[in-house]
């Protein structure tokens, strides 16, 4: 039976069932609550999607130790549900990917790198330079989907980082930009071999089983084969953003996509 803290949440084209411990936690998911389901519409659901995503009290207590002492229960629950969500999504060719994703010329592009490298900074520089030409999709953890036909899409998610940057827009992936801090700006395409490990590290999932790992690498192989991956060494200035923008644009023009 559905309880007050049970919600159907629509993510990357799928409806997932959540049971929240804290009554405030659903607030983080408010843009994603599936109102059709709430009204009682019947969907043909995959068995796996009927499984409720939730955090037990014991899990919450265990995770609490990794947070600041006064951190709220709802915030911890919200953060910890991300990995559980990603693990479930992996069964459907989707996974949460650590990046700042934005839409440009009808395609999704993403700055990706370990935390603190400057993903948000690079996005803000682009926004200052190119204004309405670009629109944020998600500032921290969008959902990547690899469709059976090989198309790759980036979708919004409720986990949009400390800046809370996110919009309800999805787009097919045009390219990935792996960031590295440097005193000088330089951009180059990454080879498949060079891209494998840095990109694998940005897929967010529990890494509990070999099966999950194999699924992520299967997604990664499609990504590397389908879209360009760039490495932008940069010092976080306007020139680096211009250099990156122009390199991608030039490659798109040469590839006949613009």
């Amino acid at each position: 039976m559905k309880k007050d803290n049970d919600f159907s949440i629509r993510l990357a084209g799928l409806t997932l069932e959540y049971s929240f411990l804290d009554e405030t936690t659903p607030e983080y998911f408010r843009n994603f609550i599936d109102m059709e389901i709430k009204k009682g519409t019947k969907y043909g659901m995959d068995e796996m999607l009927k499984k409720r995503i939730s955090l037990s009290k014991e899990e919450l207590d265990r995770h609490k130790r990794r947070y600041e002492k006064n951190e709220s229960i709802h915030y911890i629950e919200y953060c910890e549900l991300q990995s559980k969500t990603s693990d479930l999504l992996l069964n459907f060719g989707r996974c949460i990917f650590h990046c700042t994703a934005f839409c440009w010329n009808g395609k999704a592009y993403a700055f990706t790198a370990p935390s603190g490298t400057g993903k948000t900074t690079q996005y803000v520089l682009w926004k200052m330079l190119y204004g309405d030409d670009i629109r944020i999709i998600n500032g921290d953890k969008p959902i990547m989907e690899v469709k059976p036909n090989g198309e790759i899409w980036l979708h919004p998610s409720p986990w949009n980082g400390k800046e809370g940057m996110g919009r309800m827009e999805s787009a097919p992936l045009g390219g990935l930009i792996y960031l590295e801090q440097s005193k000088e700006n330089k951009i180059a395409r990454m080879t498949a071999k060079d891209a494998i490990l840095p990109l694998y590290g940005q897929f967010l999932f529990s890494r509990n089983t070999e099966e999950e790992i194999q699924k992520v690498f299967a997604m990664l192989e499609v990504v590397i084969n389908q879209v360009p991956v760039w490495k932008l060494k940069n010092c976080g200035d306007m020139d680096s953003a211009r250099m990156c923008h122009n390199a991608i644009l030039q490659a798109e023009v040469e590839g006949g996509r613009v």
Partner: protein
Amino acid sequence: MKEFVPREGVCLVNVCGEYVFVATRAAMPFCPRYQFTNESGAYFWELLKNCGDPDRLAEQASEYYDLPKEEIRPGLETFLNTLVENGFLYVRESEG
């Protein structure tokens, strides 16, 4: 007898024509999260799942690569010892 045993929770992945050892969460305290290997490394990893005896491994590889066992052995030992150092394998002493 010295036996080389693959660490539980370590898997071998083939991606874009490259082979990578990858650790699950359970294996992470014992080894790196991931590391490239080559085709021979992948071949030996598959053998190691069923047999940890370096002598037997060298024999099987000798047949597979059509090379004398003595030529296989030094490279194999280096490979096994490196994986033990990294934690992807561990050594078990067994009787016999």
